[in-house]
């Protein structure tokens, strides 16, 4: 006996719809996507190339200076130097630069779109209601699922890697900006208004300065999330530390796998330590 009604047995062609949509995009806007993809690829490769022209030791020194300037801690600075020298020694310098470039661009795009969107959502309840499920979707949907359409639209290379990374990382700055702006105490808003602040002044002089620590936390999260995407980005052809990992997997090369993996971990730790907000300095500038 079959108790399932017929209309339930009729499969909804969900997959077909998505395919139809993506096919439509590729068919009609193939040219546009390619131009976009190629020019972005050119910019990213250009960045990597100019970084690669600088002798590694100079870059390491610059990074150490930055670390010391931000934190004033010798132990940290020496640790950063040691870690970067280890990567150089292992022979993954070039891939590290590629990964760093990818992370920088992904973060840039995420922040550029994510922070304004977070602010807009904080000011409009309906907008937050609307984007909230989308953000949930972006963070939970398995990455491999949207690798295929990005690959079709943007071809193989850095750009599909960048797009996938952005999809995965952008919810962090949006959410944390939203959180920061909505948690400004009502009394501070009142004070701003009482002294004649316009909407724009309220944003720049009250809301953003108050939300700044939270927004910075969103930025840090965004960077770390981008970094966690390197291996997946490598699957769609993005250069960087992910590539040797994928290659090691394909050729069952334990040595290479562990070395590249170690390099990724080092980059993550170094970035985390440098970006971490110095304690007790919650409000910088303003």
């Amino acid at each position: 006996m079959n108790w399932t009604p017929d209309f339930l047995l009729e499969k909804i062609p969900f997959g077909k719809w998505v395919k139809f949509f993506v096919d439509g995009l590729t068919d009609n806007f193939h040219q546009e996507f390619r131009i976009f993809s190629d020019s972005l690829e050119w910019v990213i490769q250009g960045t990597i190339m100019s970084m690669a022209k600088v002798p590694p030791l100079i870059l390491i020194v610059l990074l150490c200076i930055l670390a010391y300037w931000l934190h004033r801690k010798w132990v940290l600075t020496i640790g950063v130097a040691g870690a970067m020298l280890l990567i150089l020694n292992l022979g993954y310098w070039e891939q590290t630069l590629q990964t760093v470039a990818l992370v920088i661009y992904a973060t840039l795009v995420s922040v550029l779109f994510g922070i304004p969107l977070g602010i807009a959502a904080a000011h409009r309840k309906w907008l937050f209601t609307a984007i909230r499920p989308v953000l949930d979707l972006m963070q939970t949907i398995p990455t491999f699922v949207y690798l295929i359409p990005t690959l079709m639209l943007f071809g193989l290379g850095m750009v599909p890697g960048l797009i996938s990374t952005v999809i995965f990382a952008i919810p962090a700055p949006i959410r944390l900006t939203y959180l920061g702006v909505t948690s400004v105490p009502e009394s501070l808003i009142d004070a701003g208004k009482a002294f004649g602040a316009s909407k724009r002044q309220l944003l720049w002089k009250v809301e953003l300065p108050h939300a700044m620590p939270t927004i910075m936390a969103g930025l840090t999260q965004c960077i770390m999330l981008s970094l966690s995407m390197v291996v997946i980005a490598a699957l769609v052809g993005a250069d960087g530390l992910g590539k040797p990992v994928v290659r090691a997997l394909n050729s069952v090369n334990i040595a290479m796998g562990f070395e590249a993996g170690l390099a990724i971990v080092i980059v993550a730790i170094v970035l985390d330590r440098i970006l971490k907000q110095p304690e007790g300095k919650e409000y910088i500038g303003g």
Partner: protein
Amino acid sequence: MPVVSFEHVDVIFGPNPTVAVDMLDQGKNRDDIFAKTENLVAVHDATIDVQEGEICVLMGLSGSGKSSLIRCVNGLNKITRGHLNIRHKDTLIDLATCDWSTLHNLRTERISMVFQQFALMPWRTVRDNVALGLELSGVPKNKRHQIVEEKLALVRLDNWADKFPRELSGGMQQRVGLARALATDADILLMDEPFSALDPLIREHLQDELIQLQKDLKKTIIFVSHDLDEALKLGNLIAIMEGGKIVQIGSPEDIVSNPVNEYVAQFVASMNPLKVLSCASLMRPVETLENDDRKTNSKIIDPKNQTICTLDDQGRLQKVTHSGNDISMISFKEDLDLKTLPKGTIVTADADTPMRAAVEINFVVGLPLPVIDRIGKLIGVVGNKEIFSTILGKTNKKKSMV
């Protein structure tokens, strides 16, 4: 002409204030309206005129609508019905209908505010906090700097300019709030329970400072308080609010001697009379004193019929006798040294002499104090009986009420 005048102001929060307005007109009360429509009537039919240079205190329990009303003055709350007129450069501006740029001008030039929780920006230094209003209205940096230094000196915080608010005590933080409000040179000052978050000692200290500052500044101040002592100490005009309505409005003396209902009477009963009353509200008026049969124009001022004031034809105090002997008489001054005051001296007080001083003098000299007006006319007397009945909260009016 008043500087700020509230005319039948209603403030209603909720999904559909107009419905609530209709229900109010039908005579429904606030709880019914809230139960039926979820609209909250925070203020109903408030009418107050605040004159230039006056301190008007809105007083009432928490939730009685004081903040809702004061926040209408600078447009932080919308006025649901009624008018709120502010005299501004020969014109009247109605806050209920004015446009944004008018409101903006009022906020930057005319009205400033001090908040209960200080509302200082934690990421700004004291100096930059004080500069907020100037910065928002586009005052150039060096001018700003100069004004800020000046206002910080006024509240005696010039040495703290580069600190952050969290490094300051509560009292100091509120002085920063005050300096910020003074920086724009607005002449209407809104103060929403500015001292309520402070320790009692600091609170009194700041009240005194405000009184001192007001002597020079002569701002028009609207002040919210839930403490009658504070209201009586600061206010020229006190409006008492209960459940969104103003139940009594009048001078401090009026409130203390004439509470209109149980709610006001309870406030009056719990105040500390030593801190707030003056001889005017304490004394037994001259009309109720008995004449001495033996002489014309003389009043008996003690219960044992021994101390007698002799008046001239205009009612001015000429001399005081005790058991038939003339006694020496001096008038009260603030720097009067009570230690050197001989027992049995008569000290004359005036209407403004604080109750604390009257009690102390009475204790030292052991005689009642005649109270005289500016031209020397006897207007009343303060003796043991008046002092005790005031401390016990038993003025004539209240006795009939309780």
